[in-house]
């Protein structure tokens, strides 16, 4: 217990980085995922193919590889630099990799949502003369989002837990990296491990309950 108290400030700062990563990745992946979904249901075959290719490739690549490639390949070799400060740069590199990865799962969840919208809705939208973009944004997406609030919550929870993999992207300030550095000094410490686990649970559990509650509240009555 003493170890946890002694290292709590460092660990807390590390955990804060996870929270910041989560927020950036949540916003970016939801936007990117929605764009990908629009591509995948669009009338243009090229866009459909591009969206499908993206989702299938990214979804089947390990996150560790995505992040390691972003850091060592894109940033170090190809010169994609967000900031001169190495730590800030690696934060944004990891945030980018995490968003790109999570977007594929957001797209898959939303696509499942689009599948729950009854055929008649889309037919009715077409019958009153709405264009593809109009029926997508006014009829299909609002219902699709409501249907997949809970799965999207699961995707976000998974993403929050994935922020620990930031180490692979060279971002050595998050909770997992701090825990590893601490363990190098103290050896494995059960209180420290449990402390971080509880911190993550405090972050993820409310999201699970909130999205579960929201999905029941927003469920489209059919």
């Amino acid at each position, binding site marked *: 217990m003493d170890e946890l108290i002694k290292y709590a400030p460092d660990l807390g700062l590390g955990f804060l980085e996870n929270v910041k990563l989560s927020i950036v990745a949540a916003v970016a992946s939801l936007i990117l995922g929605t764009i990908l979904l629009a591509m995948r249901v669009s009338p243009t075959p090229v866009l459909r193919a591009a969206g499908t290719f993206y989702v299938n490739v990214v979804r089947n690549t390990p996150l560790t590889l995505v992040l390691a490639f972003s850091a060592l390949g894109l940033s170090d070799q190809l010169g994609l630099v967000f900031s001169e400060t190495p730590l800030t740069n690696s934060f944004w590199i990891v945030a980018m990799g995490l968003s790109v990865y999570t977007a594929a799962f957001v797209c898959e969840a939303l696509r499942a949502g689009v599948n729950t919208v009854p055929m008649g809705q889309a037919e009715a939208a077409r019958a009153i003369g709405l264009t593809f973009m109009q029926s997508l944004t006014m009829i299909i997406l609002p219902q699709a989002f409501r249907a997949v609030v809970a799965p999207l919550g699961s995707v976000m929870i998974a993403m929050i837990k*994935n922020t620990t993999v930031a180490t692979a992207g060279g971002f050595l300030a998050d909770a997992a990296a701090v825990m590893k550095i601490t363990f190098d000094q103290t050896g494995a410490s059960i209180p420290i491990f449990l402390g971080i686990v509880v911190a993550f649970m405090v972050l993820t559990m409310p999201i699970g309950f909130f999205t579960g509650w929201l999905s029941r509240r927003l469920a489209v009555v059919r």
Partner: protein
Amino acid sequence: MSTSVLFDAPGPRGRIRNHALTVISVIAVGAVLYAVYRGFDNKGQFEGKIWQPFLQWETWDFYIIPGLIGTLQAAAVAAVLALAFGAIFGLARLSDHAWIRVPAGVVVEVFRAIPLLLLIFFIFYLAPMVGGGGDYAFMAVVVGLMLYNGSVLAEVVRAGVHAVPRGQSEAAYAVGMRKNQVMRLVLLPQAVTSMMPAIVSQLVVLLKDTALGYIIAYVDLLNTGFKILPARFFGSLIPAAIVIGIIYVALNMALSYLATWLERRSRRSRKTAARPVAAPGAAEVGVAAGQGTEGGGLAPDKPLE
């Protein structure tokens, strides 16, 4: 609803518009690809010399194949253990005795909530303290994957048994079977059929997550291919990433297709009264492939029919 319902079969004007959009999107996709190509080319990533190593058998023999074997070994051992863990804890959660059901539920929920990498780190550092010196990377990866994926599979097992219509067990009790017989002879055989797609999807997740071993220096495909190989052949980092990326994607897609095929087959199957169980975390409308590093999550379970 199939996606094609979102838009009409286009008329003359629509066709022209669609053709225009096609041309524009081809140009847009092409521009993105060209920008990537230029970026790579400017840094000399298309020089034959850095791709050369991948044409030599020695590279595959010394680096990629041993790494692939390491990945597959960890995945295979972890898969077997996770299936056993999932079966035991899934059934324990279904027990009528609270003293079995509640602890099993706590274990499953806790291990599902812990970020997998933290779990692997913890085991990696704890093992030498308990068992003395040695290389525990393999053990840490396998045990971490077992605990996490086993917990997700336990939920799959529970959902699978719940997916069998209640009438089946009522009928079995009515003809005088014991609890044990009902589970063994009636519920499980039907549940396994409906669980197969979700189990295979979770195995895809497991295979993908073996790559976390890279962080604790377990000799897997990512380690030999992305750390050791580029250190040996200077400058070959990006070709290496592309080659091992293709290997991972091919492996996982093959497993994903197996899952989709199993799902389609079990939808047709008359051997079970249960509907296919979706992977936890996936929307119930059959997202066949598994979610990424950590599929499940803490979202309260929807009753799966």
